[in-house]
């Protein structure tokens, strides 16, 4: 591991930690504009995090250590996910530690811990949230894996870096299988990140919430970590999606110069992606909980079609 590689790795993680709340703020701003509301400032997520960190943490009397550990594990997993995902460069020292399948496993790990933490207090909402989160999770995970499989069949590799490099180096062409997989990936990301057709990140309406029900018992620094981890997750998903389907502009060496040049490309892509996400969230209505399996089954089906079309039409 070279020094430059270490630097690039640190830069990628720190950039993710710093940019993730900004991305959330940007999306919230656009959501507000598109819905005809006055938008909160772009830096609002940072202020919220700062406020939450300063508050004292109120923990239920019967909470077990799992409740207090879970936010840290979730945050650590998401930090690792951002370190693995090819955000800036495909040549990161951490990248070989986990391929696409392991990355899916990493997200599942975080999900299992936060669900266990939600069940820990024993209030009705926590368990309800845990159950719903696991429901969305077990449907989204196979779909996500199939999307990644479709991409990895093209590059004959499950290593994310390798996939991105292969995709970025091919002559520009229309790949129907990738197009279908891209739609499937978007649907899965919406579900995994508790976005509108599946869950509403802004809701506290008891009957419909999933993510908010999970973290209902958290406060203070624990809540701050969970929120930050949620924005990290969104950031990681966005970066993976952008790297897979818009692979241009990702550095392929670990020299500092190349990476510094990769930052504007990433920011530009995220800016557009954030607006698109806000648009999707605005023009769709949140669906009933038991429509969610159908939504995710559609994503799964699209991913399978992508796989089959790849088999028929070839690379």
């Amino acid at each position, binding site marked *: 591991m070279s020094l430059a590689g270490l630097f690039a790795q640190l830069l990628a993680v720190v950039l993710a930690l710093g940019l993730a709340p900004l991305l959330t703020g940007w999306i919230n701003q656009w959501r507000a504009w598109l819905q005809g509301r006055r938008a909160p400032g772009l830096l609002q997520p940072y202020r919220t995090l700062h406020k939450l960190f300063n508050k*004292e943490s109120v923990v239920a*009397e019967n909470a077990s250590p799992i409740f207090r550990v879970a936010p840290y594990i979730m945050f650590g997993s998401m930090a690792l996910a951002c370190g693995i995902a090819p955000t800036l460069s495909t040549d990161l020292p951490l990248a070989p530690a986990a391929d696409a399948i392991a990355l899916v496993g990493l997200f599942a790990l975080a999900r299992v811990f936060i669900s266990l933490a939600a069940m820990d207090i024993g209030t009705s909402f926590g368990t309800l949230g845990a159950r719903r989160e696991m429901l969305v999770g077990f449907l989204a995970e*196979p779909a996500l894996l199939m999307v990644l499989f479709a991409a990895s069949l093209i590059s004959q590799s499950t290593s994310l870096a390798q996939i991105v490099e292969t995709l970025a180096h091919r002559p520009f062409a229309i790949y129907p299988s990738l197009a279908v997989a891209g739609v499937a990936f978007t649907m899965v990301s919406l579900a995994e990140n508790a976005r509108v057709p599946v869950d509403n990140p802004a809701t506290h309406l008891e009957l419909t919430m999933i993510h908010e029900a999970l973290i209902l018992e958290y406060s203070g620094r624990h809540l701050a970590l969970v929120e930050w981890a949620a924005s990290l997750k969104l950031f990681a998903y966005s970066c993976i999606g952008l790297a897979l389907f818009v692979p241009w502009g990702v550095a392929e060496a670990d020299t500092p110069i190349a990476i510094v040049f990769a930052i504007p490309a990433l920011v530009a892509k995220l800016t557009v992606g954030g607006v698109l996400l806000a648009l999707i969230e605005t023009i769709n209505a949140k669906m009933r909980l038991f429509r969610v399996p159908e939504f995710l089954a559609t994503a799964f089906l699209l991913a399978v079609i992508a796989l089959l079309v790849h*088999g028929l039409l070839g690379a």
Partner: protein
Amino acid sequence: MLTLDWILIVIAGWLALGLIGIAALRNTAVVARVLFPAGAALALALAGLALGALFAPPETAVLAIGLPDLPFHLRLDGLSAFFLLVIGAAAVGISIFAAGYFRLGEGTPPGLMCLEYHLFLASMALVVLADDAYAFMVMWETMALSSFFLVTANHRVPAIREAGFLYLLVAHIGAIAILLCFGVLQANTGDYTFANMRAQTLSPMWASVAFLLATFGFGAKAGVLPLHVWLPEAHPAAPSPVSALMSGVMLKTAIYGLLRVSFDLLGAQLWWWGALLLAVGLATALYGVVFSAVQTDMKRLLAYSSIENIGLLFVGIGLGVLFNAYGMTALSALALTAALYHVLGHAFFKSLLFLATGSVLHSTGERSLGKLGGLMRRMPWVAWLSLVGVLASSGLPPLSGFVSEWLLLQSFLFTTGLPDSFLNMMVPVLAAGIALVSALAGYTMVKFFGVIFLGQPREPKLVNAHPSSRLERAGLAWLAAGTVLLGLVPVSVIGLIDPVTRLLVSGGIADAVRANGWLLLSPSSLDRASYSPLVFLVVVAVAVLLTALGVRKFYHGRLRRAPAWDCGFPAQTARMQDTAEGFGQPIRQIFEPFFRLHRELPSPFDAKPVYRVTIEDHFWHWLYLPIARLTSRIARVVGRLQQGRIAIYLLYSFVTLIVLLMVVKS
């Protein structure tokens, strides 16, 4: 002395311990403090010997017991050594746990339990050592019988007697199929040694017959669809250490038998055998995990989860057969490595979980998930150790379940090289099934752990739950340590599996894996795929620590304990928590066609509203009950011959005698 001799000494030691147990029939102190720990020590020795034997050339022995001219042939090769390792390593933890578990007053006296338990262990070890059909079948039946008696330890409960009977029935139907399979394999030579069977070349038709018989017979023991009905009845009925042995270890002897017959004894393989195993395995896995998610009894939940894992093993073996049939040795080795890795991993984590339910059962007297909860505070050791098993069982990194899932998915991704274009497209789609199964396993395990250990105690009596004994904890800790180790050093473990795949398909992936260093697991090249659990764990741990330190440094660590928020409705009790049934409800709704659901809903005017839901198996109604009815109808017809008068019975014998004499004369 040969390793095989030492192994036989260990097995003889187990039998001796069993006999001593008979002498100390009701002396719990001797049985628990001396015999079971000694059994654990022997198991450790067995595991060590097997580890050495993995890399040694095959050894054979002939034991002159049994019928004259029909001695037991034994053989210790890579495959049997690997399964001996599984038996030994899991038995260490289970025996230590059992030392703290069995006590007086649970039906069978502890001394007898000790005999049955060690006989069970010894017969399993001899099954994988047997080198002729005769020895194999004798040991196979001993294994079935000793486990039958262990299952029916609490034989005063009618449900347990029924479960035991069903188990015995299916085990024997399976045994008949295995016997017939050996009959086909020896190809009319009259020589039932495995060496002879290896030497025969069967026509594709007869080879397929033998393969189908073996799949049926071993499938019945393993609990593969549609022969699974006995498993969720018998495994939970047994005392927990026995459940652990049955689910964690005994099911693996069926896998051993399938591997032995389909790879070793049958020479060439046909591609559709693999496709069959793949289809059956996937159906079993999905069926098992869906049923597991809706169970309300913690041991039944685990039993169904075992069915799921057996399904995954069949998928791995099926892929191995498929690749091998097309001569793709390296890929076949990869798929088999995934399956064997899972054999080892499952032996540890499933035993661990079953033992944990044993601890919970002992300290609360409750197996229904609807009446547990909040035990994390009462029994933290059991909770944290079973969390390891839960995470492994969910297939989460960096534990053992994930490694085998990862290897399995990798071998699925390689399928595109198959020469048959239909399989080429079909098989990668099946990988989606594996992904669905493992994600659902996560759902099930969150339910298992969350409902038992988290939340508030659902019953007042749970407040008195006592922590587990020290021996119980030690047994759990051994298995948990094994699970963690298997998860963290996959490269070394694959080195252990390598001799087995070399024996089965004369190819292995260990060299390719070792070429990339001990830290990174990569089955072919780093460009293709890589995974490093250790780096994974370290980075997450460092990130967690740094975050915790950072939060402390820049902010404060103030924490206040307060009552949980009651949503403005203060009159809440612990019974109002979400139940296990509630947790399974989404699965019930989504996978409704899988179940035979009966639901009783209370009307709004009921003074004492009762909600009841029962979930039954379609197979039981559409397959087993018709067969049972047919059997009893035939039995009734035959029963007419029974008149109850001695004269009539004498007449039957007389007529038979006359007819026989006539036949002999002509």
